[in-house]
């Protein structure tokens, strides 16, 4: 019995010693991992600080392939990130593009990427465009000779999520996280007022013993068919009459009546019409004075001078707010400020599918103004890039200005873009010559909030020939932040050798908040350390 006890005791001691041996072995390995994790955690802090506070090398880099040392600080504005560097980093890391396009020049084609309505960025924005040697230079500048044991991943996203929607004479803004924010809304609108069918005047007046009636109507939207016109309780027109875009007409009974169609002083005229989207009724109060003349017929709208202005307001605690704007806004831009976070977003009012001018941002040069006929699809298939039919009209650009915040200013008044001419990318805009496209240097644009181009089709053009090209349009290129406001930058050096985030001995993370232009970004950095 005693020998069995001894056997059990020796077995227990043996198991214990074996356990301690394996555990100590595991401790040694895991401690090494822990040290690596702790060290690389500190690395993440230091590296993020270095990336955010240094301008990099060269200090004014705008092309990632030139970078020797990665730094995002603005060399001219301490404490701020340089929006042009973010734009270059976004381009290299693959901005979500609408279409891959090219500028069709006489001698050489240049890749551009469509990122919004009439808005392009220079280059084909795919991560494959980054020279692998750039990753090595960046890692070597951060980790020295041990660079091959590390990778970094950088994600830069706006701290505020802002939704902007246009609803008639209102711009709605919604901000996340919810809270009370100051909001400035700047907008671009046509001079002609709201689009659609409008009653410009409704009149009932006495002429002798008779009552005369007239309703003046103008259509500033898509073609409509007027089916019924009423004044008070009297129907003065009940038929079908086509009213084209930018056309005016008057409705009146053929014979004056013997009784007043308005039974009281409060009397309304109503016009019922049908257009491509449905049947609508508009009404307006009746005036009891003889009217002045109203010239019926169609006209070319004034598209050369868009309104641009700003209005201010504040969101409620739910992060929602509305700002009233005048006219028919085609573009609105919201600048939102909390107590330490700020952000920007913009929206269009469903503008036409194909513009007549493209605005192409090139980080190291400026913005090119190029006729959309010269911007074509890079691949095959339906064109999402520009309008390249042979009969595209030569004229188009009516106004090119900048919005400085509060007011707009014309930038050029002597610019004629002609797609029939060869494109020379060395042409700087101005000088009154007929050119295929030209460059507006960044220093000419300065710190403007956005660039406004209004275009209209040649008056000799036949609308059916040009299909979906709008009669006239506004293209607005937001310049704040350098790149479209809600884009996220995702740059990773592990792309030099794998397609997805790699397995590593230790991964550490650091984050910080930083401003670039009018936008606050949250910057996250991961450092991967390999054995």
């Amino acid at each position, binding site marked *: 019995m005693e020998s069995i006890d001894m056997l059990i005791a020796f077995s227990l*001691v043996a198991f214990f010693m074996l356990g*301690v041996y394996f*555990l100590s072995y595991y401790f040694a390995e*895991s401690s090494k991992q822990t040290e690596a994790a*702790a060290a690389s955690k500190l690395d993440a802090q230091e590296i993020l600080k270095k990336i955010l506070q240094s301008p990099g090398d060269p200090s004014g880099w705008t092309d990632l392939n030139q970078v020797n040392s990665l730094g995002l600080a603005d060399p001219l504005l301490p404490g701020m990130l340089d929006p042009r560097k973010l734009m270059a980093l976004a381009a290299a890391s693959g901005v979500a593009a609408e279409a891959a396009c090219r500028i069709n020049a006489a001698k050489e084609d240049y890749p551009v990427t469509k990122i919004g309505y009439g808005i392009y960025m220079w280059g084909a924005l795919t991560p494959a465009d980054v020279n692998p040697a750039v990753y090595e230079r960046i890692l070597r500048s951060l980790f020295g000779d041990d660079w091959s044991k590390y990778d970094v991943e950088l994600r830069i996203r706006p*701290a505020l999520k802002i939704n902007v929607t246009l609803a008639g004479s209102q711009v709605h803004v919604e901000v996340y996280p919810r809270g009370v924010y100051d909001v400035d809304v700047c907008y671009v609108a046509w001079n002609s007022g709201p689009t659609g069918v409008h009653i410009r005047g409704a009149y009932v007046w006495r002429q002798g013993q008779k009552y005369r009636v007239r309703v003046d109507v103008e259509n500033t939207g898509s073609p409509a068919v007027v089916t019924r016109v009423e004044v008070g309780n009297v129907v003065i027109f009940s038929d079908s009459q086509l009213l084209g875009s930018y056309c005016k007409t008057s409705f009146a009974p053929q014979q004056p009546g013997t009784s007043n169609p308005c039974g009281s002083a409060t009397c309304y005229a109503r016009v019922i019409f049908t257009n491509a989207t449905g049947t609508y009724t508009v009404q307006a109060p009746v005036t009891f004075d003889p009217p002045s003349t109203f010239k019926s017929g169609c006209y070319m709208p004034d598209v050369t001078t868009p309104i641009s202005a700003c209005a201010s307001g504040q969101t409620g605690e739910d992060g929602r707010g509305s700002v009233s704007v005048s006219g028919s806004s085609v573009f609105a831009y919201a600048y939102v400020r*909390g107590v*330490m976070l700020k952000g920007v977003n913009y929206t269009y009012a469903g503008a036409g599918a194909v513009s007549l001018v493209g605005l192409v941002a090139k980080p190291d040069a400026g913005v090119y103004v190029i006729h959309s006929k010269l911007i074509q699809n890079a691949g095959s298939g339906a064109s999402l890039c520009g309008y390249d039919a042979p009969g595209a009209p030569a004229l188009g650009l009516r106004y090119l200005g900048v919005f400085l915040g509060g007011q707009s200013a014309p930038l050029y008044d002597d610019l004629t873009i002609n797609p029939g001419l060869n494109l020379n990318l060395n042409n700087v805009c101005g000088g009154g010559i007929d050119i295929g496209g030209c460059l507006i240097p960044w220093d000419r644009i300065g710190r403007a909030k956005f660039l406004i181009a209004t275009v209209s089709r040649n008056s000799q053009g036949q609308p059916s020939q040009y299909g979906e090209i709008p009669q006239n349009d506004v293209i607005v290129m937001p310049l704040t932040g350098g790149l479209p406001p809600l884009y996220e930058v995702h740059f990773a050096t592990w792309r030099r050798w794998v397609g997805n985030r790699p397995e590593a001995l230790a991964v*550490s993370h650091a984050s910080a*908040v930083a401003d670039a232009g009018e936008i606050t970004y949250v910057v996250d950095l991961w450092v991967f350390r390999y054995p």
Partner: protein
Amino acid sequence: MRWVVELAVSSFILVLVLALYNYAAPGSLAVQAGERGRFAELSLFAVRLASSPEFLFRLWQDWDGAVQQANAEAKSIEPLASVNVTRPAEGACPSSPQAPRFSISLATVLPNGTTVCVVVRA
């Protein structure tokens, strides 16, 4: 019965070893290293808030609303962070012993000249 006692003593030692292992486990050390980084991030965050003109102006106009908004924005970046603003006690910003891990207190001045303490906790 002696083997029972031996078994109990051995088990006790084994449990002790496991407890020591948990105490020195890599996860614990990693958290310590992580918290150093988190402290640096919160410090920057507090400095940004205390030097924000928008925050100071809003505090001056609407104290509670500004603090509420600062908390909303802080939590969107660091979910565990909270912001409080107090007046200095006896010429110094108070320490915050109730903070579970970090507490950073910074003095700043409102547009009307009033000194306040911005406290960020996590």
